[in-house]
C-alpha cells in the first residue's frame, strides 16, 4: 500500500530521521496561527504534485488560510485533496535523492542515491545514480554509509550515516517495498532533512502491522470494496466488464480485448474457486462498474467450468442482468458448462478469440 507523505514522515520521525516541523489538517479550522513561512502540501498519492499546483507557499496568515481553502477538496491530478500537510519552510543548500527499494533480480534491498535530488529518478541519467545492494542475511553495516559518502558529497557525514541506518531499519522493520526521500535536503547549516516521503508497504505483511490497517486511498472505492472481499479488481476505464480466472489469464484477456480495439472496463480475477457464490460476488462488483457488455473468460483447471456456468446463470437471474454476457469456457467440464449456458440463452465459446470476435461483432452491428 502507498502511504501519504505525512504518514511516511511519521515513520521517519519514529526512526529518528529528521523531517521539517509540521502538522496535518482535514479542515481549515485546524490551521494553527501563522508564525513563519510554510509550505502547504496536498496529501495525494501522485507524483508531480508541485507542477500540478498541489503545493503552495504561504508568507502570511492570510495566504495560509486562503491557499488552504483553495487546496482542500480541490482535484489535483484527478485526485481529491482531503488533507494538507503544513510544514515549516527549509532553506535548501543541496538536494539529494535517496531511496531503498527491492531489487527483484538480486532479491535484495537496494539503496539508490543521486546527487540530483528533487527530480524523478527515472529522468536522472544512469551515470548519476549510485546503487548499493544489501545482503538480507547480513543487513546494514556502517561501511555502507562510508561507501555512499564516497559518491555523495555531504558535509555532515555522521548525520548521514545515522540517517541511512535508520532508513534501512525502517525499511526492514516496516516491511516496506519502497522508502524514498526525494529530495533529501541539506540546509545551510548542513542539517539533513527529509523533504518528502514516498513509502510503499508490502500489502502481504499487514498481518504483522496493525498500524497500517487503513483505507488504501490510491484505490478507487470499488477497488477497495473488492479488496475487502479478497478480489483483485482494477478499474480500467473502458466499457467491457471482465471476469476471468487467474491473474495471468485475466491480463491476457484484457490484452486480447485491447488488441481487438475493445476497451476493458476492469480487471477482475475470480481466483481458483469452485463456489457459485464467489461467481455471484464477482458479478456484483463488475455490475457496479456499469459495463456495457460482460465478458467471462474461464479456463477450468482446479476451477470447474460447469460450476462457473451455474454461477453465471444464477448471477444473471439474481441481478437481473440486462447486458450481453459473452462467455468463453474451456478446460475441465467445459462441454457441460457451455451446455448449461446455452440452455440459459448465454453465448459460450470454447475459444477465446472466437468469443472476442463475437464481442467485436456486437459493436460493429451497433
Amino acid at each position, binding site marked *: 500500500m502507498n502511504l501519504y507523505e505525512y504518514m511516511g514522515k511519521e515513520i521517519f520521525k519514529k526512526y529518528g530521521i529528521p523531517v521539517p516541523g509540521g502538522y496535518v489538517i482535514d479542515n481549515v479550522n485546524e490551521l494553527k496561527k501563522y508564525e513563519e513561512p510554510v509550505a502547504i502540501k496536498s496529501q495525494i498519492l501522485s507524483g508531480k504534485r508541485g507542477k500540478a499546483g498541489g503545493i503552495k507557499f504561504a508568507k502570511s496568515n492570510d495566504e495560509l488560510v486562503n491557499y488552504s481553502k483553495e487546496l482542500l477538496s480541490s482535484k489535483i491530478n484527478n485526485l481529491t485533496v482531503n488533507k494538507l500537510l503544513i510544514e515549516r519552510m527549509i532553506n535548501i543548500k543541496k538536494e539529494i535523492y535517496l531511496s531503498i527499494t527491492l531489487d527483484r533480480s538480486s*532479491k535484495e534491498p537496494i539503496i539508490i542515491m543521486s546527487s540530483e535530488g528533487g527530480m524523478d529518478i527515472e529522468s536522472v541519467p544512469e551515470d548519476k545514480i549510485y546503487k548499493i545492494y544489501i545482503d*538480507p*542475511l547480513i543487513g546494514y553495516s556502517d561501511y555502507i554509509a562510508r561507501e555512499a559518502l564516497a559518491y555523495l558529497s555531504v558535509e555532515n557525514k555522521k548525520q548521514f550515516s545515522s540517517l541511512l541506518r535508520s532508513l534501512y531499519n525502517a525499511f526492514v522493520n516496516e516491511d516496506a517495498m519502497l522508502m524514498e526521500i526525494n529530495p533529501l535536503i541539506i540546509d545551510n547549516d548542513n542539517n539533513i532533512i527529509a523533504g518528502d516521503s514516498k513509502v510503499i508497504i508490502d500489502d502481504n505483511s499487514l498481518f504483522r502491522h496493525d498500524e497500517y490497517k487503513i483505507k488504501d486511498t490510491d484505490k478507487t472505492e470499488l477497488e477497495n470494496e473488492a479488496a475487502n472481499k479478497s478480489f483483485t479488481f482494477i478499474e480500467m476505464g473502458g466499457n467491457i466488464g471482465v471476469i476471468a480466472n487467474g*491473474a495471468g489469464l485475466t*491480463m491476457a484477456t*484484457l490484452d486480447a480485448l485491447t488488441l481487438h480495439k475493445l476497451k476493458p472496463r476492469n480487471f477482475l*480475477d475470480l481466483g481458483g474457486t469452485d463456489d457459485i457464490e464467489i461467481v455471484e460476488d464477482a458479478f456484483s462488483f463488475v455490475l457496479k462498474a456499469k459495463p456495457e457488455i460482460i465478458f467471462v473468460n474461464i479456463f477450468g483447471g482446479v476451477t470447474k467450468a460447469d460450476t462457473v456456468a451455474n454461477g453465471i446463470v444464477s448471477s444473471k437471474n439474481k441481478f437481473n442482468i440486462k447486458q450481453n454476457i459473452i462467455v468463453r469456457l474451456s478446460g475441465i467440464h467445459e462441454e457441460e458448462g457451455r451446455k448449461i449456458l446455452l440452455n440459459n440463452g448465454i453465448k459460450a465459446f470454447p475459444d477465446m478469440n472466437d468469443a472476442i470476435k463475437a464481442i467485436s461483432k456486437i459493436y460493429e452491428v451497433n
Partner: protein
Amino acid sequence: MVIINKNTNVIVQGITGHQGAFHSGEMIKFGTKVVAGVSPGKGNTEINHVKVFNTVSETLGYEPYASMISVPAPYVKDAALEAIDNGIKLIYILTEHVPVHDTMEIAHQARRKNVMLIGPNSPGITVVNESKIGIMPNHIFKKGNVAIASRSGTLTYEIVKAVTDSGFGETTVVGLGGDPIIGTTFSDIIKIYNEDEQTKQIVLVGEIGGGEEEKAAAYIKKYVKKPVVGYITGRSAPPGKRMGHAGAIIEKGVGTAESKINAFKDAGIKVADYPDDIPGLLQKL
C-alpha cells in the same frame, strides 16, 4: 528429464490444510512419491495414506529430496527455513501473499545452502510421466518435447492444454510464481531447459514487472539454439497497478510488456499475441 523424476521423494508441509490435502492426493494420482506430510500438532495422523509428522526432522527417515510448502503466508518463512535446515534440496512454495521480506530471506538462505526454490505463489512443477509437485491439473499433460515456464497459474494450464491438444506435448512445465521476488526465475530455468536433451523447444510465458524476461532473452540470444516461443501478458496494464500478481507491476518505467516483447524479438524468440497462437508458433520437428 530435469529437476525431479519418478523416484523423487517429496514431503508436503501443510498437508492437513485444505490445499495440502487435496493437492497431495492429486500428486499421488499423478505418480509423485509423496513419502510423508508435515503439519505441526497433527503428528501421528495420516492423510491420503501418507503419514503426518510434527516436524520435517521426523520425516528424514524417508529421505525426502523435495518439499511442497502449503502453509498460511505468515508461516511460510518458518516452514522454508525448517526444510532448508533439514537438508531438503528442492523447495516449492504454493502459498500466495508471502511477505516479500520473508521471501528475500528464504531465497538467500536457499542459495547459500544450494537449495532450488520454486515460488512462492507458484502452481509448481510438472515433469510429464515422472512427477508433479504442485497444483497443476493432472489431465492437461501429455508427454512431448516442449518445456514451458510461466509466471502464471491458470494461463499456464490453458497453454499446456493447447500444446497437448495440438499434439506437441510437454517435457517439463514450471510455474515460477507471480510474486516480485521468486526463487527460480526465467534466467535460471532457461539454462535447465537448454541442457535437457528431451526438450526440443521452449515456451516462456512472461508478464509485466521486473526484468527477468529480458535477462532470459539475453541468455537465449547468446546460448540457446532450440526454438523458443514467448508470450507476455499485461500489454494493456496501466503503470503502478499490481495486476493480480504482486509482481505484475510496472514501476518507475521498469517492467513494461513492450520492453519484454522487444527483448524477446531481439533474441529471435517468436512472440505470440494471443495465448491461442502459441501452438501455431511451435515447430514441427
